[in-house]
């Protein structure tokens, strides 16, 4: 049903009148945008002059055009942008001021259609009166019930490649999945992974077992992990929907202005309270998307309220499953819970390269149905294609070696820089890597129009300045450093990749190659040509090398362009050699030099470690090797003191000793352990579906307390230990980054009841020993000097 069928254009309607006329009980009619239940209509209430209690948006109706700002949170923007695809009419109720009409009424202006929008939070919309736009949605025709036809496109050109890619940005509306509304782009961006089926099967299994225990499925994770997306997929999954299913897609959201987030969660989680307040006929399955911080905040908000004791057990279960507390809580009797922490999803691992590989497939300009397919087809006939780095970068991304190398680099970033990779930040990274960023300079935004205007049709006509603009935005350069001097915020991934820049780690071969290209750019011609061939693209008579890369290869002969006044292009070209080696795995001599072998070793170790599930199972060989050859030897070298061929550890007593520090021998294999990853125990199937790979090894150090100290071995610690066992002497500066290791290992001397203590006289360097010795007459304590 359409509301316009019973409304008269030009009439004044107050909200209370509309409420009565349409039987609306929903309080959200008091907001600016409202969709009445069971209507294919969206009502927009617009007031030009805002009162002090109203959100100060800039809205105005000029003739047939309405300039209107959406909600600050932009939650309902999709209803406006996609109203035609969704078969919704937009009805505008307008007034100049709050008191213009009696009973705070509005003049009903009739149906409008979406024309365009810009910005976000709030989004600036331009809507035009349907009659004026000449569509079937005009007032009279609209009443006939015919579906509104889409307005003619603003431009007859194919979608702009830069605009299409813009949807991948973290700041884009497309990066947030709205409840019940996946956009076309979001559909295309989706990469299926196993966790979706795993949860669906879990719910189906629960339903088939006809159990009476409520089931709680918690989807947790950081922003951008894909919780909302997963929820929407589950909603559409066959066999999941049902009357017994409650889905809380956004735990930070309340259902009415008078309700708080906590109120809503208290109600939704009632089946899992020790004493439920709202009995149900049938046990429900509640699927709840909630991030870790919100879990903490929710239970903190219950402190001191009557609900606190009701949810104690739930808190213990969730905190323990999310790693927020140390206690390992067993499953409660009355209900079941599965906590799926999407933080544990590894987007780089899994069949076929995991989610990241799938994302690259979705970007493939030659794959029909991909995000870029339609726009990229138009590029073939674009006059400035041979200067367009965006299309070239897409082609480079099709090269298998580049994909593999990029995946390795992201592993580096994720392990070394502690960057959490999510689908959202990966899409954002890919956007920036492909386009070079949204801006050309401080005042110029990147667009296809700008490219068509600013770039020459023939690369030979490029100026030195434009050459620099283009070359710095080619993938192998842009992933390592910002293309413009004025540094823009590039996000954690690109910042992390910046520190993996091979220029920083260059060795002998790298310097030679760099120097040669700097002296004579032609040295690089062959490599650019090779990359051009690998990044080829379809052409009328077959495939051809990438035109931009080919042009760059030929331009290496134009020395002036590369050397110019400040030689920045020449420097970029020279840097590009080693960076290309890192990204494209060629030339192999350079690639070996700039590859980080320790990351790869550590990845292999983590993968092997991830297979070790239980402490009573033998540890994988790789883990055993690491324990004996790196961890024990490394700790010995860093914290031990060699006396007479034996290693001793500092024994601290209660008063600060300055003249005769004490040392004891420690049975390191006994005090220094590696245990299986605690996450693996018991919840292996969900973790498998998440392609989970541990990010660190769970080591522990015993130093005299009842419990050992947990010391995670991450990539940085792994690297340090490897260096130390090869002879590097770790300084206190090195150890600053490993406070927990230092704290635990400095206490190793207190680990057990040592039968011998040695003392080193600081002034003389002499060593003494007190020792308990077994004699025929019994145990005695002896004290003497030690020959060193």
């Amino acid at each position, binding site marked *: 049903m359409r509301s316009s069928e019973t409304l008269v254009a030009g009439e004044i309607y107050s909200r209370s009148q509309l409420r009565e006329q349409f039987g609306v009980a929903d309080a959200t009619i008091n907001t600016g945008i409202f969709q009445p239940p069971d209507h294919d209509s969206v009502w927009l209430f617009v007031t030009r002059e805002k009162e002090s209690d109203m959100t100060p948006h800039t809205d105005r109706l000029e003739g047939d055009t309405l300039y209107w700002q959406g909600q600050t949170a932009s939650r309902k923007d999709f209803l406006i942008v996609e109203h035609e695809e969704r078969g919704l009419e937009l009805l505008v109720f307008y007034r100049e001021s709050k008191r213009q009409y009696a009973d705070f009424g509005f003049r009903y202006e009739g149906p409008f259609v979406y024309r365009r929008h810009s910005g976000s939070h709030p989004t600036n919309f331009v809507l035009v009166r349907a009659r004026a736009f000449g569509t079937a949605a005009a007032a009279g025709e609209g009443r006939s019930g015919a579906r509104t036809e889409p307005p003619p496109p603003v431009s007859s050109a194919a979608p702009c490649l830069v605009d299409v890619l813009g949807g991948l940005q973290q700041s884009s509306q497309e990066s947030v999945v709205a409840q019940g509304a996946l956009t076309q782009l979001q559909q295309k961006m989706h990469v299926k992974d196993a966790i979706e089926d795993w949860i669906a099967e879990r719910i189906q299994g629960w339903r088939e077992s006809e159990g009476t225990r409520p089931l709680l499925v918690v989807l947790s994770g950081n922003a951008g992990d894909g919780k909302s997306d997963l929820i929407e997929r589950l909603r559409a999954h066959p066999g999941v929907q049902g009357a017994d299913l409650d889905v809380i897609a956004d735990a930070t959201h309340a259902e009415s202005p008078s309700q708080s987030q906590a109120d809503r969660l208290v109600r939704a989680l009632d089946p899992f309270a020790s004493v439920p307040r709202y009995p149900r006929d049938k046990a429900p399955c509640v699927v709840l998307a909630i991030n870790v*911080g919100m879990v*903490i*905040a929710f239970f903190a908000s219950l402190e001191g309220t009557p609900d606190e004791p009701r949810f104690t057990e739930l808190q213990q279960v969730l905190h323990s499953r999310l790693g927020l507390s140390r206690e390992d809580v067993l499953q409660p009797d009355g209900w079941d819970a599965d906590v799926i922490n999407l933080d544990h999803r590894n987007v780089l691992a899994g069949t076929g390269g995991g989610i990241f590989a799938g994302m690259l497939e979705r970007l493939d300009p030659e794959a029909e149905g991909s995000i870029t397919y339609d726009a990229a087809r138009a590029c073939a006939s674009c006059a400035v294609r041979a200067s367009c780095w965006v299309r070239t970068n897409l082609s480079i991304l099709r090269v298998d070696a580049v994909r593999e190398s990029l995946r390795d680099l992201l592993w580096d970033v994720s392990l070394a820089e502690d960057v959490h990779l999510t689908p959202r930040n990966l899409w954002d990274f890919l956007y920036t890597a492909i386009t070079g960023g949204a801006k050309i300079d401080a005042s110029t935004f990147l667009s296809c129009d700008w490219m068509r205007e600013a770039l020459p049709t023939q690369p030979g006509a490029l100026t030195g300045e434009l050459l620099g603009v283009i070359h710095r935005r080619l993938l192998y350069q842009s992933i390592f450093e910002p293309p413009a001097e004025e540094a823009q915020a590039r996000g954690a991934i690109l910042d992390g990749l910046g520190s993996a820049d091979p220029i920083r780690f260059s060795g002998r071969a790298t310097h030679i190659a760099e120097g040669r290209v700097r002296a004579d750019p032609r040295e690089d011609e062959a490599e650019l040509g090779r990359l051009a061939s690998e990044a080829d693209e379809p052409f009328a008579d077959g495939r051809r090398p990438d035109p931009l890369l080919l042009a760059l290869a030929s331009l290496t002969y134009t020395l002036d362009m590369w050397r110019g006044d400040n030689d920045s292009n020449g420097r970029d070209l020279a840097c590009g050699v080693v960076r290309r080696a890192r990204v494209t795995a060629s030339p192999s001599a350079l690639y070996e030099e700039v590859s980080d072998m320790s990351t790869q070793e550590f990845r292999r170790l983590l993968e092997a470690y991830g297979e070790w599930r239980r402490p009573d199972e033998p540890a994988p060989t790789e883990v055993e090797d690491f324990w004996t050859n790196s961890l024990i030897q490394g700790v010995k070298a860093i914290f031990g003191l060699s006396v007479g061929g034996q290693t001793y550890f500092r024994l601290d*007593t209660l008063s600060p000793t300055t003249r005769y520090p004490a040392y004891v021998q420690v049975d390191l294999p006994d005090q220094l352990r590696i245990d299986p990853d605690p996450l693996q125990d018991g919840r292996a199937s969900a973790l498998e579906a998440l392609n989970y790979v541990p990010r660190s090894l769970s080591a522990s150090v015993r130093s005299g307390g009842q419990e*050992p100290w947990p010391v995670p071995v991450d990539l940085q610690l792994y690297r340090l230990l490897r260096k130390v066992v090869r002879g590097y002497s770790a300084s206190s500066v090195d150890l600053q980054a490993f406070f927990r290791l230092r704290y635990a290992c400095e206490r190793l001397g*207190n680990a057990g*009841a040592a039968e011998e203590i040695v003392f080193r006289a600081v002034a003389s360097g002499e060593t*003494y020993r007190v*020792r308990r010795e077994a004699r025929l007459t019994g145990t005695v304590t002896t004290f003497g000097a030690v020959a060193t």
Partner: protein
Amino acid sequence: MSSSHEPYWTIADGYATHTGTGRQIKLMQPGLLTQLPEDAMPARPRGDQKERTFNLLIRDGVNERLSIKEKKLIGDAPGGAGGTFVRDERIPEELRDVFGAILDDHYVIEGIKVRFLFPFHVALPAMYEFHGRYKMFNGKILAFLSQPNDGEATFNTALIQRFYNLFNEQQDLNLLDKELLVLARNTAESDAIYEASATTLITRHYGEEMQVPGALLPLAHERFQRDLETILTIPRLNRRDKITSAINVFYVHLALYFQRLAWLLDEELAHVVAALTDRTVPLDRASGCFGGDWGSSPFAGSILFRVGTGRTMPVKLTDGAVTSYREQNRRQLLMPANLSVLGAAREVMAACGIDSSGATFVDLADAARANPATGAAFEEGLNGMATATVEALSGQDRADIERQIEAGAPGLSNLREALLKVGRTALRRHGRDIVHGLVLRGGRGYISRRGRSLFFFEVGQDLLLLLAKLIVRDSQVPFRRFVEELRCYGFEPQSRAELDQLAETLRALNLLEKHSDAGEAMYVKHFL
């Protein structure tokens, strides 16, 4: 003490007797803290070596104890010369000096002109007494801070006992510890088994009936108990770390107690004097000093600190860490006088027939305002005390007090001025010196210095590690809430940049985690 009405007091032999109640007050206050409000301060301490306080905390918990001079064991010179440290017959003769020097290095605290044994096990303070007069707290302070117990007017004996058990047990001692105990027993010729107990401590100081003294700052006592309990129940700490942390909790809390008490007394007295001078001034602000909750206390956030990074950093006179130290110091100097005024004023009010046990300045002012006759008697009594206190001083000092009284200044401020005149030289010893003795210097304290006179608040890594554990315990709290909790203790980063530095230091200590909630948020979580 003369007016147009019938006098409220009759004076004879240095005492004033209330004409209505017949109760007497001594007029001349001989010095600071002679009228001690025991719910605020259980003793009349002076600054001294903090380690000695710790010795007495344990010794006072032992029932049958010996009084052998420590000198007999540790000697009277560095290296243990003169004591049995260097005469252990189990050691080859040529190595006895070295062995003694090792024991000395490990177990003897060297102070300024003093040296004493670290009480790592109960047997040591039970058998040995340190040499010389000691002026700071004894074990009574532990009993004092361990009440009230969970809101009840009793002592938290379980906590004290758990603390004592750390020192009673022997199984986690290392080989050298054990050897020292053997030597100490041999020297003392004692093979008795010593144990410290909560009951012994409490009955020693508060009698067989264990009468609680009450607490002017009950929340500070409760937080001390909670924090000590937190440390004693950490399963990953070994014996040494547990003792070190427990000691530090005690020192930091005791110092903070002094600072809190000084700050609030001065704040409250200033508001009350203003209200007594001008009756239109309400007492609301003064009521918040001892009546508010932990977070809204005027003391919250009054210690502006910077984070110690281990590197030398310049300090400016305008830094919050310096200026707030100065204000704290000013109030600390006034504390003995303010505390004495409170004690005396309670006595005057009691003599007027109003129950004033546990009363604050606000309570006293309320009572004085409620009944004009009581108010006048109260004023007269205090002024009489002020006059008598300065009687033996120079004419100028006497004239100052007389002038104040004639000008109609409230008796509370007159008495404080009088006490400051007689006790000015002792102010530092009873306040600032104690705080400095407890927390000046070192990574575990929070007062640092440059040169001889520039002091400032600086929280080092060790103390931060401890405070983080005390605040977050086994959970994790948002960074913002962590900062609020620090504020409740009194600590506040001196600037926005320092707040960032605090976060950075916590991150370096592996105490900061990131989880997303409505926005990206940092959480403090402890690995202990």
